[in-house]
């Protein structure tokens, strides 16, 4: 009987090893462990054994059953793996075929850069101020210390509507509105459209965008201006960015400066973007002129402040390497999808 059991075990294990599919295994299970299997048949004959032999053979029978069962389980797992692998192989697709996209649109590059600026200044506690684009010459010039007949009025070729009404040539107009409408401390930026009578070409447009900034409080210094702009530049152009102040003149700030950032392409060593200078001019700034404060009802003996203004087109163009401003207003979706 023992020999019979060993034989059944050996045959069963061989059959299992030969099995190639889940079905084969099921057939092995039925034929070796089922009711009509040789094992069952052998164990049915237990009655013919002596009481001493019975537990020995019983144990042996069980171990054979167990061995077959275990082997079946193992084989099942193996075959399952193989079958899954086969299935996966069959399901292979060409991953280089084009993607199916949920077609998202994008913000215009001018808006996306403007938003980036807004986020930086919002984080520093600035609000976003607005003002009209069709403006009076008082806000565009007079209140900015540029009285009538001042030669600086010619620097910007302004579009006039009437003698006193014009299209604002700078977002600095919002400085005055902000100072008239709020008491210090004032901390605002003001992005928006401005207009100058420049014919359209690769670097000029009669309409473009600026972003103005204004801080008024007690004890505001020129070093605060430099600190604020450095903070801004590092966030806008990268942690390694440095800034440089150069003296300049604006009627509404004193002292005034032009501000360069170290070239974010070459890092300052000189390249085609910075024209070999290592610096890129991005904005004008200065301490708000006491006449401007006074005209807007703020006492320059008590308060001081700084203002700055930058051209958004210029930043967009240098940052993205766009050489022709007209692309920004043509709005070809193939262009817009790149940003």
């Amino acid at each position, binding site marked *: 009987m023992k020999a019979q059991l060993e034989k059944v075990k050996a045959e069963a294990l061989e059959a299992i090893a030969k099995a190639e599919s889940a079905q084969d295994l099921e057939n092995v299970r039925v034929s070796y462990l089922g009711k009509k299997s040789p094992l069952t048949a052998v164990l049915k004959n237990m009655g013919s054994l002596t009481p001493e032999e019975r537990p020995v053979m019983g144990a042996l029978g069980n171990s054979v059953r167990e061995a077959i069962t275990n082997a079946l389980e193992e084989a099942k797992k193996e075959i399952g793996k193989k079958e899954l692998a086969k299935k996966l192989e069959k399901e292979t697709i060409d991953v280089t075929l084009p993607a199916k996209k949920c077609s998202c649109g994008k913000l215009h590059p001018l808006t996306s850069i403007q938003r980036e600026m807004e986020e930086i200044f919002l984080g520093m506690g600035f609000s976003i101020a607005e003002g009209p684009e069709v403006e009076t010459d008082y806000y565009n010039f007079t209140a900015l210390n540029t009285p009538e007949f001042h030669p600086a009025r010619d620097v910007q070729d302004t579009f006039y509507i009437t003698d*006193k009404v014009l299209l604002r040539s700078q977002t600095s107009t919002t400085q005055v509105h902000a100072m008239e409408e709020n008491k210090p401390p004032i901390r605002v930026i003001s992005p928006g459209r401005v207009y100058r009578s420049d014919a359209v070409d690769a670097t000029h447009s009669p309409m473009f965008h600026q972003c103005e900034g204004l801080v008024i409080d007690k*004890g505001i*210094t020129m070093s605060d201006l430099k600190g604020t702009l450095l903070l801004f530049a590092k966030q806008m152009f990268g942690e390694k960015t440095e800034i440089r102040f150069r003296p300049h003149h604006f009627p509404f700030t004193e002292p005034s400066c032009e501000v360069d950032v170290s070239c974010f392409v070459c890092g300052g060593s000189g390249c085609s973007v910075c024209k070999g200078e290592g610096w890129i001019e991005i904005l004008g700034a200065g301490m708000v002129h006491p006449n401007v404060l006074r005209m807007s009802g703020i006492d320059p003996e008590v308060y001081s402040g700084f203002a700055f203004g930058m051209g958004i087109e210029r930043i967009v163009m240098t940052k993205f390497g766009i050489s022709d401003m007209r692309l920004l207003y043509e709005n070809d979706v193939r262009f817009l999808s790149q940003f």
Partner: protein
Amino acid sequence: MKLSMNWLKDYVKEDFDPKAYSDKLTMTGSKVEGYECPADEIKNVVVGKLITVEKHPDSDHLLICMVDIGAEEPVQIVTGAQNVKPGELVPAALHDSYLPGGVHIKAGKLRGVPSNGMLCSLGELGLDKHDFPYAEEDGIFLLQEDCKPGDDICKVLGLDDVTVEFEITSNRPDCLSMIGLARETAASFDTDVTIPTPVVKETDNGKTINDYISVEVLDSKLCPRYTARVVENVKIEPSPKWLRSRLRACGIRPINNIVDITNYVCLEYGQPMHAFDASFLGGSKIVVRHAEKDEKITTLDSIERQLSEEMLVIADADKAVAVAGVMGGENSEINDNTKTIVFESANFNGPSVRLTAKAIGLRTEASGRYEKGLDPENTLGAIERACELIELLGAGEVVKGIIDVYPEKPAKNAIPFDADKINAFLGTDVAEEEMKAIFKKLEIELVDGVLYPPSYRADLECMQDIAEEVIRIHGYDLIPTTNFKAEALVGRRNAKQNSLKLIDELLTGEGYYEVQTFSFISPKYYDNICMPADSPLRKSVVISKPLGEDTSIMRTTAVPRVLEVLATNRRYRNKNARIYENAKVYITKEGEDQPDERMSTVIAAYGDVDFYDMKGVCENILDLLGIKGYDFVPNTEAPAFHPGRCASVVSRDGQRLIVFGQLHPTVQENYGLDIESYVIVCDTELMMTMQNFDKHYKALPKFPSSERDLAFVCDKALTSGEIKKAIKKYGGKLLESVEVFDIFEDEEKVGVGKKSMAYNLVLRSPEKTLSVEECDKAVAKILKGLEFDLGITLRG
């Protein structure tokens, strides 16, 4: 302003490297645009002496020259010019030399004869007859300079100068002069500057200036100072080379000695000068007066100018002879026969000159200077310098005496000095002693704690101006960086700014690209979108001097510009385009010059979109802004739209929030759009007044719903919206939602002029699971209502 480095040496005795000089001056506030040296373009060109000149054996116009170039051996150069003779000194471009414009000269053969370079004409050296009046223009430049063979031509011709170009800001007219820039140079490099005082010998002919001319100033506010000198026995001739070279370096063309002297002094002192031919001054007098009504003058450029009474003119006894500070008149212009001249060196009121120049449409070098406000103290030095040059050049005899009408010296600005205040303002720590040293360099006097800027620095008026002077000389790069100490403020977008950002996010998420278009348009653009002739939107803000018609008025609708973009994309063969602009429109207000600037959102698309996609976008925007209670109403009257495929979104209080639909075929054609295009126009400004972001939780349903599908046959004209409205009206509390899910028309099955509409109804009670009977009852009520209101019944 162009500065000659050679000229600068008259005042500052130092050699500067052009790059280091430019960087330094830029950092102290005189921005350098660039610098150039004509000699950089000319290399290996020397003075050559012609030894022999022989005919070329194989050419009847070429000549073979043996040229002494100061080397051991002469060189052979072939030339085509016919004015060469043995013994002449000429510019010789040797083998491997360079000429202006990047011309590279190499040895070669001309008709078989070796030529080791080229003899040069004026033009080939980048010069013209004004630079060297004695030279022939169409031949080799025969040199009459003091030079010998082998000398570098640049040195000989005075081309070895470096020109530095400055961008001078409007507050510093004093820096539009060599002397002004010399002062800045000295202050920047902490070195000495010497401004020579001109010395005039005067002629002793027993007469004084008063025997020649009198000067009367009738408006000393517009002409605070008028200084005049007389020169007689004038000889008009070319100026000497040194003077011509200097003018040339500064970008001024030499004309003749008198004109050159006025230009030279203007460059040196920054004081415009004028010379009258005394013989044309009627009554031997100069009157500075206002123009008379309808007075005219023909200026030096031969154009007749109409003057008006607020303008200031220089006149003689009976006529205007110059427009003050702008340009002289043709009637008193000096000419080759001029014998006696009157020099004018005057100070005119800046705004007045600016206004006059603008009004007569004539901006000149002089007016550009005057309008910035010049220093009246400067007129005397300038006129003395001019007369000194007259004597130096032997151009005439200076008559004894000066007429100087200067009734009131302007008061000097006085600014209290407080070093601590300046440091506190700048955030710096500049020592008081350093500040004082800076003031000294800038000739700002400090007396008893009060600062008195020099007369040429009228721009220095207050502490902030002084602070700038301190820091620009101390160094802008030495300003520390600090963070302002201030109370915390909340930095956030306001409700409107926030909504616009949300709309951006929604629309870009839905596949729309944001565009930016010009705010100005042409009035014709309104025709393109078929705007009715009497539409109030045709009243636009008009730009008085536009660049062109397409940018001549401010838009009252952004539709034309957005359609233009759509058309551009179609023209570029982009298969699909979905675009939008959050666009300001400028709506005129009765009786006011400034318009109402309103935000609108225009969305446009072609390609894989249809009417219902656009409707979905509208619903999403309304939902985004939390606007509830609106209806979609067919709009057959919007002229830009297909009358059968256009709808308005109307709020419950009757305000039109949105108009959208398919573009009218005519409008489509106007833009060359050969594909069905769709547009949504949102009155975003209005919608933002209705926005509501309050959110309240509504309990999720506890009990299951029951659904019923109902199909009706109705007239074609009946809209789905009307049926839905009626179903809702009769559905009561149990009706949770109703949506149409099938529409079909079939003359045989549903009849002519009819359609079948199928609706899915969801019924639910918050309190229990509805029984079949309860649902049937609710549906029966709806059916009854529909029959009563609309006369429609269930499809059999």
